[in-house]
Structures are given as structure tokens and as C-alpha cells.
């Protein structure tokens, strides 16, 4: 009897042992947290997000946050809205020493105004983390498209990681282009020819808003990029050089005025806000709009079913002395506060967000482009991956006009005369005169 009991007990123990062993084997087959994620302690973590609760972006971050909460006991992730409207309040929190653990757009390597956060030791140096591997085995730094790296660095060190590739491109209505047998313009003359054909057919070529001057300024910035190049513009805008020294500026101003004089812009654009201008484009009342690639995500709920969107970069300007292939854009940068008590956990969250799998999910959910290599283009932004790849190693130029928007006084000095040119209140010569006198009064950037 005792022997039978002992045998039964041994059998039970053996079965339990086999089960346990099988379970542990299954666990071993699952992807275990990689070395970079090992030894991290859980805790409360706050991240700044760009879209409110319920949005696709919020849900995407929450998915990653949930995985952290599962893998690191004691972790509780909170999501704080940190979009444009909330920035002043969030920045006050930074200044008072109570920042979110992870924040968005607090740093941009191309915006000197944000470098103070690094200089004052408020941001975590992410260089070592970026030289490590992502959970999918790729080296984090190498997985980022080179064009976007300057936005993440200060003096060669990384203080941010990228999320979403934002590029200024002409968005066009493919149906309208096909109806009138039009091709994507490659040169300025092509663009004028396309616009004229559209106008002759009774279609407004370009939707634009007159109530937000930098959107009109996009035309000016692109023309100057092609005509005189970024260094010449920066010398005028930030360096105290007179705009009159380079005749390319006047040529660009005349080309811009030509667009206005030919009546290519949306009727009444002067009083149309940007949402309406965008709606007019998606309603088929204008064939093209020069806008950031956030457009589709932003207008997602208003885009009519079956709308076919095409993209092309601002055309080349033959004879121009500037950068003929350059693009304006940026990326939404995410940084970790040095004061964070869970900085390792914060880095781990960003690391998980950077995998190809997560980037593909984000691209699909938000219909934005990814700044990471090998992530397919979203279906609503056809060809964006091709455009980004073609940018190759050349750095992307920060919009608007190399970050001038961060300096209100200089931004107004630069863009307000452009707005007046669009409204036919200034001639090209007068516009340059006004810009010059404004900038001369402000002086070079300190």
C-alpha cells in the first residue's frame, strides 16, 4: 500500500515536473526581455502625448504603456496631453523642476531656443541607448533615416528620438490630375503649366490659408531654398546680411508674385482659415495644397471615401543656385527628463516604440510617415517612403524657414511682408525692402 502510494506520489511529482518544465520551455521560446530592458525597475511614468484620449495616437502609446505595466511590476503609465495648446503649461512644469518623464518636442537639435534644456542638464543623454539594440535586434541609431538625425542631436550627442516624419510636400488630387491628363510637375515651369491648365479648366490650382502667414510663407521658403539655398537664407534671416545683396531673393519674390497675379490661389483665401482651406482641397475645389504630411492624419475624418491623394516635392527651379532636392520637414522628438525617477523605464518605452513592428502600427493608425528605415508608407501617403529615401543622407531643412517660427519677432519680420505680397499690398521690391528693414532693426541672432 505504502509502495503504491509512494509510486503514485512519484508519478504525480514527475507529471508536475514535466508540466513545469514544459511551461518553462514555452516561456523560454517566447521573446524574453532583451538585455537592454533587463534590470529596469517599475514605477509611475508620465509621458506627454500629442493627441487626446481616445485618439489613434493615444491608443498606440497606451499599447506600449500596457506592455511596460505587464513586464515591469509597479509600473503605472499616465498620458498627459502635450500638444501645441498645452505646451506653455508643460514648459512651465519643466522650468519648475516637475517635468513629465517623457516629453514631446521639448528639444530639437535645429532649434537653438531649445538647447537650453541640454545646457542646463535637464535632458537625459540618450546616445548610449541609441547605440544599443532595439528589441527586434537592429541598432537603434542605425534604424533612423539620416535626414532626421540633426533634429535629435546637440554637439554630436542624442537628446531625443524621432516619431513621425513630417515633410512639406505638394499634396494633389489624383482624380483631378488624371481628368486633365496632368503629370506631377518636376520643375517650376511644369508647375506653372499645370496650374494654368487647371485654371483654364475652371479648377483652382492651389488651396492656401491667408490667416496663418507661415503657410503662405511655405511657398517663399521653398522658392528661396531652390533659388539661393539654405545658407544664403540663414545669413539674411539670422546673420544680419542684407537681403539686397543676393539678386536671387528678388527673382524668387517675383516668381511668388506671379503665382498670386495669375490667380492660382483659392478664391477668398485671405480670410479662409487653414481647416477650411484643407477642406476645400479634399472636397475637390482645389487641385493642390502645399502642406505637411500631417494633413491626412489631421483631416482623416473629413476626407471623402475614395479620395485619391498624390504627393510630390516642391519642384526644381532651373537656374537656381540653391538646393534643388532639399525638403523642409522635421520629426516629433521625444526626450527623457534627467530628473525622472524612472529614466530607464522611460528609455525602454521609447525603445519599444521604435521597433519596426510598432512603427508600422503607428504609421497605419495615424497615416503618417515613419522616420525609421524600412517602415512601409501608409496607404494614404503613397510614395512618401520613396520621397524620404531619395532625400538620402542630406539633412532635412527645418520648417518653417529653419526654425524662425520659434522667434516671434523675427518670424513676423520675415513672414508678414510675404503675407502682404500674397494680398497684393506689396510689390516684390517693397516686400524685400520691408523684410530687410525689419531684420536690420532686429539684428543678427545672438
Amino acid at each position: 500500500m505504502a509502495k503504491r502510494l509512494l509510486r503514485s506520489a512519484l508519478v504525480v511529482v514527475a507529471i508536475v515536473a514535466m508540466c513545469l518544465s514544459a511551461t518553462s520551455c514555452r516561456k523560454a521560446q517566447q521573446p524574453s526581455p532583451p538585455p537592454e530592458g533587463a534590470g529596469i525597475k517599475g514605477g509611475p511614468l508620465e509621458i506627454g502625448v500629442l493627441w487626446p484620449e481616445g485618439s489613434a495616437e493615444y491608443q498606440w502609446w497606451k499599447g506600449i504603456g500596457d506592455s511596460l505595466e505587464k513586464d515591469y511590476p509597479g509600473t503605472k503609465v499616465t498620458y498627459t496631453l502635450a500638444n501645441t495648446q498645452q505646451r506653455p503649461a508643460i514648459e512651465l512644469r519643466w522650468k519648475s523642476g516637475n517635468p513629465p518623464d517623457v516629453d514631446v518636442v521639448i528639444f530639437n537639435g535645429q532649434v537653438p531656443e531649445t538647447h537650453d534644456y541640454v545646457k542646463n542638464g535637464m535632458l537625459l543623454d540618450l546616445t548610449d541607448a541609441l547605440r544599443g539594440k532595439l528589441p527586434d535586434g537592429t541598432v537603434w541609431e542605425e534604424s533612423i533615416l539620416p535626414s532626421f538625425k540633426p533634429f535629435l542631436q546637440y554637439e554630436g550627442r542624442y537628446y531625443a528620438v524621432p516619431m513621425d516624419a513630417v515633410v512639406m510636400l505638394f499634396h494633389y488630387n489624383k482624380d483631378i490630375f488624371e481628368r486633365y491628363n496632368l503629370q506631377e510637375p518636376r520643375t517650376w515651369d511644369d508647375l506653372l503649366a499645370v496650374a494654368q491648365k487647371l485654371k483654364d479648366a475652371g479648377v483652382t490650382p492651389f488651396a492656401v490659408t491667408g490667416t496663418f502667414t507661415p503657410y503662405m510663407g511655405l511657398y517663399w521658403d521653398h522658392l528661396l531654398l531652390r533659388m539661393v539655398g539654405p545658407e544664403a537664407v540663414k545669413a539674411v534671416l539670422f546673420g544680419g546680411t542684407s537681403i539686397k545683396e543676393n539678386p536671387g531673393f528678388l527673382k524668387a519674390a517675383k516668381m511668388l508674385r506671379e503665382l498670386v497675379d495669375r490667380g492660382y490661389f483659392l478664391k477668398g483665401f485671405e480670410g479662409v482659415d487653414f481647416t477650411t482651406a484643407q477642406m476645400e482641397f479634399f472636397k475637390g475645389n482645389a487641385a493642390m495644397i502645399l502642406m505637411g504630411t500631417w494633413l491626412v492624419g489631421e483631416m482623416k475624418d473629413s476626407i471623402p471615401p475614395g479620395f485619391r491623394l498624390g504627393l510630390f516635392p516642391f519642384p526644381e527651379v532651373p537656374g537656381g543656385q540653391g538646393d534643388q532636392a532639399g525638403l523642409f520637414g522635421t520629426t516629433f522628438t521625444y526626450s527623457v527628463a534627467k530628473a525622472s525617477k524612472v529614466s530607464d523605464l522611460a528609455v525602454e518605452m521609447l525603445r519599444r516604440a521604435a521597433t519596426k513592428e510598432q512603427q508600422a502600427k503607428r504609421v497605419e493608425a495615424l497615416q503618417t510617415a515613419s522616420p525609421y528605415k524600412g517602415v512601409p508608407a501608409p496607404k494614404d501617403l503613397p510614395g512618401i517612403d520613396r520621397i524620404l529615401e531619395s532625400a538620402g543622407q542630406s539633412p532635412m531643412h527645418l520648417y518653417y524657414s529653419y526654425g524662425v517660427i520659434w522667434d516671434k519677432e523675427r518670424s513676423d519680420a520675415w513672414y508678414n511682408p510675404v503675407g502682404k505680397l500674397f494680398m497684393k499690398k506689396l510689390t516684390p521690391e517693397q516686400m524685400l525692402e520691408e523684410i530687410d528693414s525689419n531684420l536690420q532693426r532686429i539684428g543678427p541672432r545672438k
Partner: protein
Amino acid sequence: MFIPFVVPGLALYVLAVLLPLLQTVAFSFTDWRGVTPPKFAGVENYRHVFTDPTFWSSLRHTLAFTALGYVLTFGFGLFFAWSLTYRFRGKHVVRAIIFLPCLFSVLVAALLWKFIYHPTLGPLNALLSKVGLDSLALTWLGDVRTAVPAVCLAWVWQSLGLWVLLISAGLERIPPELYEAARVDGASEWAVFRHVTIPLVWEILRVLTVLWLIQALQQFAFVFVMTKGGPAGVTEVVTTYIYGVAFQSRNYGYGMALATSMMLVILAVTLVVNRLARKESVEF
């Protein structure tokens, strides 16, 4: 015996008004971007205020808003308040209609008018086109000629009721016998208004004017919501400019110098107007 009652109020005033004010003035002498510790800059910020073209243009716009707003508010305000001194059917309804916009929040009123002025979707241009006045269907908020009056009208529409109410309170104080005596003497209604109403309500109008100036010179919300200072900066007022310098450029030191300068401008304007409008008060 008196001090304990004053202390709580005084403490609140010092903490909520005086200290921030002094702090603003102190920071206005620094170069401070909010992140690095403030660096003493002497009068550099104030020197810059004097040479800053945007400050001067925004000050001109502020004064234009204030002047136009004053004419419209006090013109219509006096007219309505005086009209409401008469007895007529539906007087309460008219009073309610005039006061109704005051119940809208500034944001709602600004957005409502932004929609009304919309060049393609707004009812104003649709109405003008319908009655054959297409030439008057303008891009109200996008045209450098019409943007200031358009914003001003929205602002006056929203606040008019309150000023009518305040002026009415002043008119109600005038003894009816004085009107009766003037009418018995054969005075026309215009003469009654000019020689009886205005002199007797002058003190109140003067106080209201000063109050108006203080709040009008700080106008922010309507401009910020309706035009954000556009088109091409023609509606930029000092307050929106200060906001931009402080929160867009993060140049807090200069923003505070602008704010302090504007405080001095408001002080000077109100003192001058108060002095100029002072008359020997009429006892009644």
C-alpha cells in the same frame, strides 16, 4: 482694532497682485529664456522696446481698436441706454436682446463671428450675395482694410449689453422732474439729451471711460481667437505680441519688459483721459 480686518485682504492683494507685479518688473531687467537662470541685462530690454517695430505697430493697432471700440460701444451704448429710459411696448425684450450677447463667453462669441465673417461658408457674405451686393462680400478677417473693424464689431457686440446696463444705471439716477421741466420749457428731445442728460451723467461716463480704456487696451481674446494677429500682422495688438514673445519665442525677460511698458502706457492714457474729461460736477 482695525488691522485684523484688513490683514487677510491685504495679504491676498500683496500675494496675488503686488508680488507678481514687482516680480514682472524685476524680471523685465533680465535676459531670461525660462530655462537658464535670469541674467541681469540692465535697461537693454527697454532700449529694445523703443526700437522694436512690432511693438510700435501693435501699439498703434491697440489704440485703433480702443478708439474704434470706444466710439461704437459708447455711441450705441448711450443710444440704447437713453432709448430705454422711454416707456414702450416690449422694452424688457429689447433690453434682454441687448444684454444677451454678454452671456456668451468671449471664446464662443469670437468663434461665432469668425464663422459669420467666413468668406465662403459664412452667412454674412451669403446674405450680401443674395441681395445682390456681391461687391460687398469681402474676406472680412483676411483683408488688411477690414480685419480691424470686423474684429472690433464682434468685440463690441459681445460687450455692449454690459455698458448699456452701466450707462442705464447712471441715467436712472437723473430725477424725472428735470426732464419734465426742460420739456415744459419747450426743449426738443435732442436739447434735453444734450443739455440735461449728458451733463448729469458726465461723471459716470468719465468713470466708465476710464474703466473701458483699462480693459480695451488689454484686449486679447477676440484678436487671438479670430485672427491671431493676422492678416500680415495688421490686427496684432500689444497683448498678443507679448504672448507671442513670451510663449512662442520663450523670451520672458523681454516679454515682461513689454508688459511693464504697456502697463505704463495704460496708466498714462487713463490719467490723461481722466484729467481731460474732468468737469465741475453737477449736483442734483
